[in-house]
């Protein structure tokens, strides 16, 4: 990453494209859980349609993220925004595979589904906003 000067922006761009794929597909299901988008399908059908792309995006992010980290590890280590982002990411992933998964599989629209959709959207927003703040703190 400390090689040619285009390396960092290229990796960063791939990180953004991974973001649109993973968080973007998660958001589609979240909005469905909230009952405000894609209502012609069930949340579990949508999840089945999209999870491959969610994984693809996550893989892209988990490859490019550590690459950017490795370019300037000491600075990230001391950056509070980075810590906020990593904490949010951990919570978002745990939530994704526990409560949200359970809520997605429950077919009837429920309070649980709405809460799961809202919490998931909030957590991923924290991940993105925290990432943006890394450059400013």
């Amino acid at each position: 990453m400390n090689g040619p000067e285009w390396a960092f922006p290229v990796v960063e761009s791939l990180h953004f494209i991974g973001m649109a794929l993973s968080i973007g597909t998660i958001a589609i299901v979240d909005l469905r859980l909230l009952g405000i988008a894609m209502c012609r399908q069930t949340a579990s059908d949508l999840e089945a349609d999209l999870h491959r792309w969610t994984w693809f995006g996550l893989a892209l992010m988990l490859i490019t993220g550590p690459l950017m980290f490795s370019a300037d590890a000491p600075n990230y280590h001391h950056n509070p925004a980075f810590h906020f982002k990593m904490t949010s990411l951990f919570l978002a992933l745990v939530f994704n595979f526990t409560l949200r998964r359970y809520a997605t599989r429950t077919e009837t629209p429920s309070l649980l589904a709405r809460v799961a959709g809202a919490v998931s959207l909030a957590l991923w927003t924290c991940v993105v906003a925290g990432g943006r703040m890394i450059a400013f703190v």
Partner: protein
Amino acid sequence: MNIVSALEWVESTELSTAIREGALLYPIIGGFHLVAIALFGGMLVMTDLRLLEWAMQRRKVSDVIEQMRGWKRAGFALVVSSGLLLGWAEPLRLYRSPSFWVKMALLTLVGVHALLFRKGVYQNAKALDAGVTPRAKLAAALSLILWAGLVVSGRLIAFDA
């Protein structure tokens, strides 16, 4: 009044100074720009991947396009308005940034793309349920390329001096 002095005037406005020099405003608006890309970019990509028959094949083309249309528009409005505010904060730097002009050229092509394909493809979704036409696939591929280019050139602006 030439362009540079017009841009200098923009930079002297209260709004521009506030965004540029306030500690929080610029990162917050930048955060909005990025969160909007994260939350709604997925719908754009999925719409085009559906047209390419790479994703959501079990859903009808019209179901995907019609249900995502409103959200994509809202996301586009958010990205553009936050982008305008970011641009208002530092117009002179952007004016001198080659990546910015690449991004604006791509944005113009997005407009051309809409003129060429909106009616025949995206607003004609029901007709595509029977089979996605080559023209629709071309539209989808071009859209994905244009938006990937917008992301890359947008990111590169930060690296121009």
